[in-house]
């Protein structure tokens, strides 16, 4: 490069507005109740403007934003990780052992009835058997998600529910005692020896009827409906999960982790550990989105649609997802190929004061986003951060559409044409194996043969040649600026081509 041109470029860069998230959002730490372990398991706003919050050690408290005050509603629950307010003022809470309805019968402001709504699933006593949800669909059905157990520990001597004989180790060998380490590998990295571990369960609105809805999840610490009514579930990188996925779950789906298959009615009793991955690959309903590990997100959490007033109008209805390990949230861009949801994932509030441990997301009536943090000895944090949009529009990637040979990107404002050639596109794929996580395979930098701006300068059509199925495309948009001089907020998109558009 001609040195003079380089210096000119430097000078031009200096005049650009290098925007920060703090130009658009206020970040505030919420004062937490004194003396308590403030790892947050669940949060939801009530219609009256209070927020119900469940804590690691089992408390459920109400936070009133106007007075910044807390009041205790219930306590003593076992690792509550989901909360759902009901019309009659009661709360549904998912704890390790059961879905519980908390009622304040005498009206003194604290729950006095802890009603078991559903406990028809197994517990081996293994620490990794967390329980998530509930969420309600428009017809009133409830959905919960149940973790697999981890071979970091055996099962307890006493369990709840039937013990499956399917597996290399017997019940006795799976049980605590002796040198677990020497036999743990044979348990499978994550295992499902009691009912419905690794399943998404659908319950009738009263919680009495169980429908095993979908299986194949590993550690689904994110379940929620998006603005279009799709049941979204995030899962965590690990065995059978080269990187963390986002699913739009449908009835009967197998979502990739084989351990739970043994509880399928039509399962022939064979041990999934002994079956070739290619067999499962045929059953697998592919992920709508993939979070590249170590780059976008390591351990994604709850999906929540952004309401009006919380974000610029064009982003309203888009799903935001929490992330434990990195200081970011993830914004979901909808695409559809052949009637199937495919997602472009974009960092949101990255490199901001957000911090890590972003476990639960709840939008307040005023459009503020409350982010509850936890760690449970993994990477994370504690307490609640409130994030509030100041109403200023920002330059963002608002939509992505896969084409047979590239992508159409939609931006919030006209894009500076001179930067188009600086967009970079790479793609890679992952193997589907029992291994814990995976490096990328067949990583390629793609040549963008054409980058065209639409008449209104808000859309860019990228042409790179035929898209490849089961590849994760990463579009690096860091160099882009708007015609206004604004820099882009969320500088890359990760798009999983589960299906190639025809």
């Amino acid at each position, binding site marked *: 490069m001609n040195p003079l041109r380089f210096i000119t470029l430097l000078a031009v860069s200096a005049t650009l507005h290098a925007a920060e998230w703090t130009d658009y959002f206020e970040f505030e730490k919420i004062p937490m109740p004194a003396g308590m372990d403030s790892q947050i398991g669940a949060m939801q706003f009530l219609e009256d403007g209070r927020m119900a919050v469940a804590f690691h050690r089992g408390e459920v408290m109400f936070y009133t934003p106007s007075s910044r005050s807390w009041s205790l509603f219930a*306590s003593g629950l076992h690792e509550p990780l989901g909360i759902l307010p009901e019309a009659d003022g009661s709360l549904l809470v998912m704890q390790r*052992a059961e879905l519980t309805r908390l009622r304040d019968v005498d009206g003194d402001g604290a729950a006095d009835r802890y009603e078991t709504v559903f406990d028809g699933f197994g517990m081996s006593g293994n620490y990794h058997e967390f329980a998530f949800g509930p969420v309600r669909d428009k017809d009133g059905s409830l959905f919960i998600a149940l973790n697999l157990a981890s071979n970091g520990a055996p099962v307890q001597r006493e369990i709840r529910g039937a013990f499956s004989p399917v597996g290399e180790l017997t019940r006795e060998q799976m049980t605590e005692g002796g040198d677990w380490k020497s036999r743990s590998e044979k348990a499978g990295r994550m295992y499902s020896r009691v009912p419905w571990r690794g399943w998404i369960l659908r319950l009738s609105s009263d919680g009495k009827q169980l429908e095993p809805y979908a299986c194949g999840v590993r550690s689904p610490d994110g379940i929620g409906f998006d603005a279009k009514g799709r049941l979204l579930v995030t899962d965590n990188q690990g065995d059978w999960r080269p990187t963390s996925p986002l699913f739009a779950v449908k009835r009967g789906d197998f979502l990739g982790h084989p351990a739970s298959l043994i509880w399928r009615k039509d399962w022939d009793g064979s041990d999934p550990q002994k079956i070739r991955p290619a067999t499962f690959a045929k059953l697998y309903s592919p992920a709508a989105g993939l979070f590249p590990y170590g780059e976008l997100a390591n351990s994604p959490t709850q999906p929540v649609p952004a309401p009006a007033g919380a974000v610029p109008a064009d982003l309203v209805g888009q799903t935001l997802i929490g992330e434990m390990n990195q200081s970011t949230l993830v914004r979901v861009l909808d695409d559809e190929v052949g009637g199937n949801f495919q997602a472009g994932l974009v960092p949101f509030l990255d490199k901001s004061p957000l911090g890590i441990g972003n476990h639960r997301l709840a939008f307040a009536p005023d459009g503020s986003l409350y982010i509850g943090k936890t760690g449970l000895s*993994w990477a994370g944090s504690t307490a609640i951060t409130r994030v509030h949009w100041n109403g200023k529009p920002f330059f963002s990637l608002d939509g992505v559409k896969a084409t047979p040979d590239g992508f159409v990107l939609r931006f919030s404002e006209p894009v500076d044409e001179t930067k188009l050639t600086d967009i970079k596109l790479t793609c890679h794929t992952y193997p589907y194996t029992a291994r814990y996580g995976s490096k990328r395979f067949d990583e390629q930098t793609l040549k963008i043969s054409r980058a065209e701006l639409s008449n209104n300068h808000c859309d860019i059509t990228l042409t790179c040649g035929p898209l490849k199925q089961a590849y994760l495309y990463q579009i690096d948009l860091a160099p882009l600026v708007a015609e206004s001089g604004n820099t882009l907020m969320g500088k890359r998109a990760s798009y999983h081509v589960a299906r190639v558009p025809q």
Partner: protein
Amino acid sequence: MKFLLLSALLVLAAAAEPDGKLLFTQNCSPCHAPDTKLVGPSLVEITNLYGKNPDGFVHWCTTPGKKRPETIEMPSMAHLGEENLLAIRRYILKISKGVVEKMDTGEDPFATAPTLVARPLVQRIFMPNAGPAAIAVAFDAKTSLCWDAGVCRLRYAWTDGFIDGYPYWRGNGSNLAKIVGKIRYTESVSPFGSKTPVAFHGYDLIGGLPVFRYSAGALEVGESFKALPDGKGIERHFTLTTPPSGPLTLLFPGDSKTSIISDHGTLAKGILTLTPNEARDFTLTLTFR
């Protein structure tokens, strides 16, 4: 102009070197802090391990394992490549210079949380010698019990303390709570027999103490407890909202450390026999010897 050009080139040269700080922030900082152990060891400890061993550092990061039983296995950082890993190591060495590690005292920082010191108290947590759906109940400073919602029965009672939940709460639940105090009574079987199917319906709190609701066969049962003064024992109250059609026999084999009496029916050789009317509502007194 020459000066500007030189600066610009320096900027370029610097940019070619991997940014150890950025790489550390993105890949390592969630689990590693300079002066304290988070998920993984502190940077001080990492410096002690690998301060003079860059190859060992790269080897560990690309093929990590688990060195400490209480922690999780570090995920592989092989995707970063050797050059970036060495840059991370240089950054770790730089920022941990002169830092002194703060040691974990092993004490529960939230032991005095108002919701944990309140009495009476109900706390669900993994308990020893019970199923995974156990419930711990503290009556007062003296007396506590463990009731198991998985099998719908009392498991044991103890005096002189409640539980230490920190082994569970400090992590992800891979350790059970510990009993604080002395076990005074252990119940070996459900009063309704081990073969009777049970279903747990939850509990009501009355004065902070639970009334457990469950069904045992065709019977709908309410079971609640009170502590006798000074840790002397417990009173155990049953209500059957659907009384049996004939005489009811219940199993209370007891244990050698406790005497049991009932205010209704006859209790002999560990079997309580009640008329349908008596079975509506009866109280047992368990006195610790």
